[in-house]
């Protein structure tokens, strides 16, 4: 290629990708734009990105006070943190046993993990709902957390990482007098930090964004996680007063978007692995 065609093709590449990129971002831009505008400007036919009269303070204040939005966000933090913590506590030792300890029935147990990996959660919703009813935990944090305390994907991912750690390290740790459990916490997990980070991202993003399960088991606003909360807010809002609603949506989406741009590579690799399994 001549230098001139090279520059030209580079330019074409940027033009196309900037166009498709902007189209992909339209909903995000529109969301933020509407969250800054007063009601009167929503109906004007000449659309502008920025408002003529800034209404951001009013919209965001209303989103934070008219709906229990801070509550939804706090619920999201509580539920996601509890799920992630319990998942790691349950899955890491199991993954270690499946990767490094020889015992009869290991293959069968790993087979159960693979079956669990295969079944979509929505298929199990009905019996899990009944289970939560029997346990008397419907409409509590426990109902949002309990069905997810074990993650077949977590066991699978950790096992894969643990298997790549040399046996000699395990033997040396045993000679040093470490218990099996402390080998998991003090050697295996720290050495598998990429897996822990990838799994944390998959877990937190999945449960922050989940609508299906919270919709089934929670009906009080005091327990609603962000995605269900914002939908409830949208249903309660009558008319076309989009400003506060878009402000609420922005606040629900913002934490993960900010985290995403701060640790882009981790998010992309983790979430891709999580969806491919």
């Amino acid at each position, binding site marked *: 290629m001549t230098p001139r065609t090279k520059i030209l*093709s580079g330019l074409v590449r940027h033009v196309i990708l900037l166009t498709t990129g902007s189209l992909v971002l339209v909903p995000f831009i529109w969301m933020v734009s509407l969250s800054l505008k007063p009601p009167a400007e929503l109906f004007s036919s000449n659309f502008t990105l920025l408002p003529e009269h800034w209404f951001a303070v009013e919209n965001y204040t209303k989103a934070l006070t008219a709906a229990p939005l801070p509550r939804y966000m706090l619920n999201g933090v509580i539920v996601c943190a509890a799920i992630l913590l319990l998942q790691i506590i*349950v899955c890491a030792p199991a993954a270690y046993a499946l990767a490094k300890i020889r015992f009869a029935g290991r293959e069968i147990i790993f087979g159960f993990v693979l079956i669990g990996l295969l079944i979509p959660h929505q*298929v199990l919703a*009905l019996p899990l709902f009944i289970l939560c009813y029997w346990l008397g935990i419907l409409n509590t944090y426990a109902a949002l957390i309990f069905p997810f305390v*074990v993650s077949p994907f977590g066991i699978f991912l950790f096992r894969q990482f643990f298997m790549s750690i040399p046996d000699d390290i395990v033997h040396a740790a045993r000679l040093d007098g470490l218990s099996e459990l402390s080998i998991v916490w003090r050697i295996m997990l720290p050495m598998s930090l990429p897996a822990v980070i990838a799994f944390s991202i998959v877990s937190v993003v999945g449960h922050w964004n989940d609508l299906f399960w919270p919709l089934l088991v929670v009906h009080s606003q005091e327990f609603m996680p962000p995605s269900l909360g914002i*939908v409830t807010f949208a249903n309660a809002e009558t008319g076309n007063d989009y400003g506060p609603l878009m402000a609420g949506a922005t606040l629900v989406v913002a934490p993960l978007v900010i985290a995403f741009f701060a640790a882009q590579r981790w998010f992309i690799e983790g979430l891709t692995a999580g969806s491919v399994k």
Partner: protein
Amino acid sequence: MSQQQVVVDRELWVETGSAEALAGYALVGPALFLILVLFILPAGAVLAIAATDWHLGAKTLSFIGTANFTSLLADRAFRAALFNTAAYVLMVVPSTLVLGLSLALLIESGKSLRAFYRAIHFLPFMTSLAAMAIVWEALLHPTIGLVNQVLAAVGLPTANWLRSETTVLPILAVIGTWQSLGLALVLFLAGLKAIPQELYDAAEIDGADGLLDRLQTVTLPSLAPVSLFVVIVVMLRAFATFDIVQILTKGGPDDASVMLLYALYRESFEYLRTGYGAAIAVIFLVIVIALAAIQTRVVNTRTSRS
């Protein structure tokens, strides 16, 4: 032969009895118990409930065999759900595939801003679809929505996208494609990186040095296994579409956008026809397992080839 048998048996005995093996059972125990309670038994329960006429909350139920499945096939609403899901998948999968591949090729064709372009196209995949569905509703609003305003400004016909039987499913497919695009893009980018440079060098020696020649002789054939993989992953996601139906259409108008998971939700938790809903869950599970089986075969042929 028999000697070998003895050795194996003794090894097994040592394994089950040793302190190490006991530690293994103790470590895997809690996870195993929870997998049985939260995955394996519920899966069995779904199969069992699907063979009954149980209504959620009812004290009695009777075994009715495959009656739920035969009445599902005769049910107009369920056939609509099946048809709509298939149509939705057939719209989302090809468009995600073509767009994802084109964008991956375009991003890979230059050196600058690769990470930036990858990130902005990936963004919808990781944001709350529930929150973004509400934004899409505003975009698609018949009078003040951006979509209709732009269309009117350039003189194209407008529509009440989510309330018209002809436009509702295609517009949901647009949203679905918008969401899955980033995943396909990232998978294709990984696939492109895995193509060895020697293949391009060899093609150049054979006279294939133009951009299109290289694409046709090297890039696209090398990406065939990845493409099949992307098709299945995106298909699995498309089959499991729920949020946008629940938030934007509730299956309407007149069941024109009812899909499998929404039908499952509606029968089980709104109409409380639990046995019937479980039968839908079983059908959904069969589809997922079939796709996963194909996926495993694809992965196996891919790894055995390389």
